[in-house]
């Protein structure tokens, strides 16, 4: 099975329908099919062997989508590289995942031109990777939800299963027009691929200035919105009467929704926000389309997945475990295949949650220390590793501080060496080594860090929503 079959099916069924709209550029399904075929011809001339690992460092846009499908057409494995990554982070990603090639929109300095705005860098990985499962489609370089293992490996068949499972909840089809404003390097499989499989029109836009977004949504008669709680708070503040009357589904994703934003948005537009639970290892687990008003703080009842709560306390809250279609095939580094990462066939998400009597899932917080900055996940260990490498830092602890508008913000406590604090030097160091959103907002000098008495590990406070 190859995911290009999903797009081919849509091209066959809806050739003249707009698939992607980006500003004034309207690309039909037939046009997208042709663009993918042209790019695949160019990619073939490179003579890449099957299952070549290709890093894709592109901003959101039609070319991002077309290149992904073209790479699948030549049976390459797509590894998205977020645009905000520093050169250091790109190098580390490339080495950890053994990338063979990087396709980028910007010339990193030594690349060969590939097409229009594309540049290609060939790499010689220093070591060889563990063999990937046959027909691997995609590797997302992220720390896993539950561990420090990096790289979520997915085959074409697993992604297809995810897409099918997601649509039992979305119920999306050719009558829908979706407003897309999230980074494709972080979100793609159960969203863009789903939309393009089902004949949906997807408008590629931004949600920074709310009025511009609302005008675009009204102009295209958008039916589905997909954004973060922070972005919905911007829309809600822009006020009513902006023409969202065609919207049937406004999905809130990436972090928990506050009651204030949920109510303000519904008040402004008469559309309830529908929370979704997406887990990188699993896909879309649930969407609260059944009772978004009454149970605004639930992520809904799982459709294609089963959920159970283990180790519950007296209120019924405990560890969330899930099983169902589209589970990851492996973690890439260090290698861990699917069958070894499950607990009796169940995947533990690292979320704490409870189920109500009707089977609606409510998330209560995280059992791990991951920080969620306005929907972007930040892993404390990764930041500490960078801070600790600075010559003036003895050790550090990174944690999330609750923030009324953003969920959490990243903060760090630093134990400086005897030369004393050098916060400006450390900030510059962070800018060099970390994507900007990961850089701690506050650097607090401390004498010592709290440690566990026996193992001497840094004590972490776990945020509870």
């Amino acid at each position: 099975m190859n995911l290009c079959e999903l797009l081919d099916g849509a091209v066959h069924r809806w050739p003249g329908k707009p698939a992607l709209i980006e500003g004034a550029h309207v690309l039909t399904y037939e046009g997208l099919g042709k663009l993918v075929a042209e790019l695949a011809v160019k990619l073939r001339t490179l003579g890449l062997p099957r299952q070549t690992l290709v890093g894709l460092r592109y901003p959101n846009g039609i070319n991002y989508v077309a290149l992904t499908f073209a790479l699948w057409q030549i049976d390459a494995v797509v590894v998205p590289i977020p645009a905000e990554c520093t050169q250091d982070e790109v190098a580390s990603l490339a080495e950890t995942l053994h990338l063979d090639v990087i396709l980028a929109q910007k010339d990193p300095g030594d690349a060969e031109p590939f097409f229009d705005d594309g540049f290609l860098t060939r790499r010689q990985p220093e070591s060889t990777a563990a063999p990937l499962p046959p027909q691997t489609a995609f590797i997302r370089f992220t720390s896993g939800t539950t561990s420090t293992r990096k790289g979520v490996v997915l085959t074409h068949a697993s992604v297809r299963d995810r897409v099918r499972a997601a649509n039992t909840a979305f119920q999306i089809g050719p009558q829908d027009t979706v407003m897309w404003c999230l980074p494709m390097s972080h979100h793609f499989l159960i969203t863009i691929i789903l939309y393009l499989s089902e004949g949906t029109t997807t408008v590629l836009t931004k949600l920074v200035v709310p009025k511009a977004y609302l005008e675009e949504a009204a102009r295209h008669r958008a039916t589905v919105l997909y954004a973060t709680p922070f972005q919905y708070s911007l829309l809600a503040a822009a006020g009513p009467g902006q023409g969202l009357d065609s919207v049937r589904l406004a999905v809130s994703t990436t972090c928990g929704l506050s009651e204030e934003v949920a109510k303000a948005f519904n008040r402004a537009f008469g559309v309830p926000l529908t929370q979704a639970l997406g887990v990188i290892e699993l896909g879309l687990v649930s969407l609260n389309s059944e009772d978004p008003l009454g149970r605004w703080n639930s992520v809904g009842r799982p459709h294609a997945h089963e959920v159970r709560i283990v180790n519950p306390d007296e209120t019924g809250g405990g560890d969330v475990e899930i099983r169902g279609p589209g589970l990851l095939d492996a973690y890439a580094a260090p290698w861990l295949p699917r069958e070894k990462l499950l607990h009796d066939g169940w995947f533990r998400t690292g979320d704490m949650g409870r189920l109500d009597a009707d089977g609606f899932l409510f998330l209560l917080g995280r059992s791990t220390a991951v920080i969620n900055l306005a929907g972007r996940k930040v892993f404390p260990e990764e930041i500490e590793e960078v801070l600790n490498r600075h010559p003036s830092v003895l050790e550090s602890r990174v944690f999330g501080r609750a923030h009324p508008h953003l969920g959490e913000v990243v903060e760090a406590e630093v134990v400086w060496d005897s030369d004393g604090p050098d916060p400006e030097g450390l900030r510059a160091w962070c800018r060099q080594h970390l994507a900007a959103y990961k850089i701690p907002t506050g650097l607090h000098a401390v004498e010592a860090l709290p440690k566990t008495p026996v193992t001497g590990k840094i004590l972490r406070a776990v945020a509870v929503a």
Partner: protein
Amino acid sequence: MYTRTIESELLEFLAREVFAPDVPLTPETNLVASGFDSMSLVRVLLFIEGRYGFWIPESEITTKSLQDARSLAALVTRMQHDS
């Protein structure tokens, strides 16, 4: 604090922490057209909160106020006077 000082501080922050080094940035550079996205907005709002001590309400995020560093500085100045 004078608007001009705020403007240069915002400009310095934008150049250092939001835009790539190859993006030429002046007080009149259109932010959104230069690649400013919602994560950039989150970081600018956090910078303003940390530096000037208040959170810009979401209702103030408009095409006009986010036009460029100059209009953003004007917004910060106005919010300082209001608070």
